[in-house]
């Protein structure tokens, strides 16, 4: 009989004075902690609450330390810890932009999410009357915003092939000298949907469907993490069959997501046949997902306390038959890809992330594992039924794009192995699939899972009602895209797609290039080079 232990994380909330945060963070990092995220919540009278999340992957699996400080709402100031650990970089820029916290000593406090003319829109050039009407000055910036690579006078050059399946619009700008990328910067926030804010207004059961729609490729993981946090709050545990079903669903999702990513690496490096073939192979998994959940993308199967619909033996058999077919086609596809010298040559020794750097920059997921840093939430703090099935972490040593591709390939095969075990057990198991939630006490919970791209964290606080008090989400791309920028800098322009593809961010398509004249160190407007004027305004 399957036995699943209670799997909630051990949280250690430590409340400090804001000044004490850098010192305490240094101490935790020296003890082998890893900074996961920093978030802030406006708590009203109490002030702005800042949380710094630390975990201890290999030392104490479930232990998490959360440093917490309350800042004055009128004058929220906190010392930056980015100089101590660059993993805090984007988190702190998020604090600056979303909560108006002044992070002192941040090395690069530029706009990451908000529009570049934000100061003009709201703070600076806004007449007093507009405060009442809440009107926004949406005209393009009159003067260029602060010195920022994104705002340098540049022109639009569609850079490299991209896949329209990427809906999230990120905006990558690179300063290029000859063929070498000197500086790269990313602008996010074009598609900001304020999901975490919407979640605060809806009840927990509606939030499930909202969190499912955060990401198309790892939607079950988003639901599972949210649901795990809520289950911790409510003190319920999903029955074994539901845990197995969740594991099955998540692994199937990993298979399809990785196959998509593998194909996209091919596509981005100009080998579109590989994308077509991997999508063809992936279709089997999509059929399997459709069979057990009813939908190809948003499965809507996981709910608080278990799963919503039972997975029958015939459905499990269907998935098994699909897996059997994939056992033949997937290794064949991988062999074909890896025996293609052009593809391998394109990826080998490109964008090398050493193990030291992976640990220092806080790499997670396949990106970390390709550099020989064996972290995986499924092993470090196991959830669902991962302790019950036979599997191992897939890792590579070399840390280049090829290694990241190989890790993804290895994980597809490993996930298929896990899926088979889950299907076999689900067939043999009968029993309840849903545990009832009785009450929702005032508490906070943090839950983590390992989606295809790395570690995902949800922090849910309940205030005893049917809606959460606040929800904070750290998605895997948040850390990995930061690393991606580092890898791009100093590499060849031609290698950029290979690096982007191998990191596999949820990334889209507005890429722009600047040319810096070699000797003069000045920026050249590409519009003056081509003869045809480009209609896109700078910025």
């Amino acid at each position, binding site marked *: 009989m399957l036995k699943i232990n209670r799997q909630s994380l051990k949280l250690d909330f430590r409340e400090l004075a804001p000044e004490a945060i850098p010192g305490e963070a240094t101490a935790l990092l020296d003890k082998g902690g890893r900074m996961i995220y920093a978030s802030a919540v406006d708590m009203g009278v109490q002030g702005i609450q800042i949380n710094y999340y630390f975990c201890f992957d290999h030392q104490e699996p479930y232990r998490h330390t959360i440093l917490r400080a309350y800042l004055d709402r009128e004058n929220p100031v906190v010392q930056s810890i980015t100089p101590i650990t660059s993993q805090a970089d984007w988190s702190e820029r998020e604090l600056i932009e979303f909560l108006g916290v002044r992070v002192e000593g941040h090395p690069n406090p530029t706009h990451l999410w908000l529009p570049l003319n934000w100061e003009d829109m709201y703070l600076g050039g806004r007449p007093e009357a507009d405060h009442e009407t809440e009107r926004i000055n949406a005209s393009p910036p009159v003067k260029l915003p602060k010195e920022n690579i994104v705002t340098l006078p540049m022109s639009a050059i569609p850079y490299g092939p991209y896949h329209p399946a990427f809906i999230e619009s990120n905006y990558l700008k690179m300063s290029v000298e000859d063929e070498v990328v000197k500086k790269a910067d990313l602008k996010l926030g074009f598609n900001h949907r304020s999901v975490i804010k919407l979640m605060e207004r*809806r009840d927990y*059961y*509606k939030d*499930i*469907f*909202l969190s499912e729609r955060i990401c198309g490729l790892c939607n079950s993981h988003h639901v599972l993490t949210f649901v795990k946090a809520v289950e911790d709050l409510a003190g319920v545990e999903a029955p074994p069959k539901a845990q197995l079903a969740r594991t099955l669903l998540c692994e199937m999702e990993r298979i399809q997501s990785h196959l998509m990513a593998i194909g996209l690496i091919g596509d981005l490096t100009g080998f579109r046949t590989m994308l077509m073939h991997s999508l063809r192979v992936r279709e089997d998994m999509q*059929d399997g997902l*459709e*069979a*057990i*959940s*009813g*939908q190809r993308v*948003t499965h*809507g199967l996981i709910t608080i306390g278990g799963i*919503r*619909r039972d997975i*029958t033996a*015939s*459905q499990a058999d269907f998935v098994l038959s699909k897996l059997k077919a994939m056992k033949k086609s997937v290794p064949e596809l991988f062999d074909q890809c890896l025996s293609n010298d052009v593809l391998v040559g394109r990826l080998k020794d490109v964008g090398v992330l050493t193990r030291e750097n992976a640990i220092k920059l806080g790499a997670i997921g396949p990106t970390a594992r390709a550099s020989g840093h064996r972290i995986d939430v499924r092993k470090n703090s196991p959830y669902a039924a991962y302790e019950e099935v036979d599997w191992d972490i897939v890792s590579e040593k070399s840390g280049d794009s090829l290694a990241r591709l190989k890790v993804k390939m290895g994980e597809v095969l490993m996930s298929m192995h896990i899926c088979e075990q889950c299907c076999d057990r689900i067939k043999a198991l009968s029993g309840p699939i849903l545990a009832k939630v009785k009450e929702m006490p005032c508490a906070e919970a943090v839950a983590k899972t390992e989606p295809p791209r790395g570690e995902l964290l949800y922090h849910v606080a309940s205030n005893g009602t049917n809606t959460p008090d606040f929800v904070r989400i750290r998605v895997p791309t948040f850390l990995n895209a930061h690393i991606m920028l580092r890898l791009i800098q100093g590499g060849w322009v031609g290698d950029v797609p290979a690096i982007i593809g191998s990191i596999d961010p949820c990334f889209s398509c507005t890429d722009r290039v600047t040319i810096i004249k070699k000797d003069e160190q000045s920026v050249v407007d590409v519009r003056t080079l081509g003869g045809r004027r480009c209609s896109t305004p700078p910025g």
Partner: protein
Amino acid sequence: MLEKLKASGELIANFFKRPVTVKESFGFVAEAFRWLPRRNDDLCTGCGACVERCSSGATSITDRGDTRVVSIDGLRCIFCGRCAEVCPEKALELTLEDAPPAQGSDPTARVSLSRGAEEPRPTVDTVLKLQRCSVCGEVMPVTEKYLDAIKERTLRNLKPETAAIVEKDMERYLKTCINCRRVHSLEWDTHPRKFI
């Protein structure tokens, strides 16, 4: 020469083969596949539980005059099935078909993603009658059917002899608007505690 012959042979053979593409949409319908919910008009009492829980705001209640329309907007529905889960009357069921398009439109029209007002939006409507107050005749914001269902459910849980006593009072209590209830509560002695 031989290769060329082979190739042309294959070419000719392909002329007479069936296309290799297969019908995708609805060629394979999974057991668990879900599409628009369908409401059984006979069972629905217009209680509004589905409106409360709908995860996308597709379900709505509109009271006009003395009718209540419970409807599902087919373009907003995400086919999650939450409404079917919570419906106390089990009146909803997720189906494999689109709901019929709104009246007067082309019946062959499929779900269109455009949100233009003139587009036929697939809707699932149930029209119910609202209760009028038995004293003043004002329209109350509950349906007749819902009150009947409540009454029946409450009486079912009582002992038959008690049920017989309270039935009439209960009928009068439920079918009176809140104002008239306040006015007549002393005179009628129909405090809800009495029924419990």
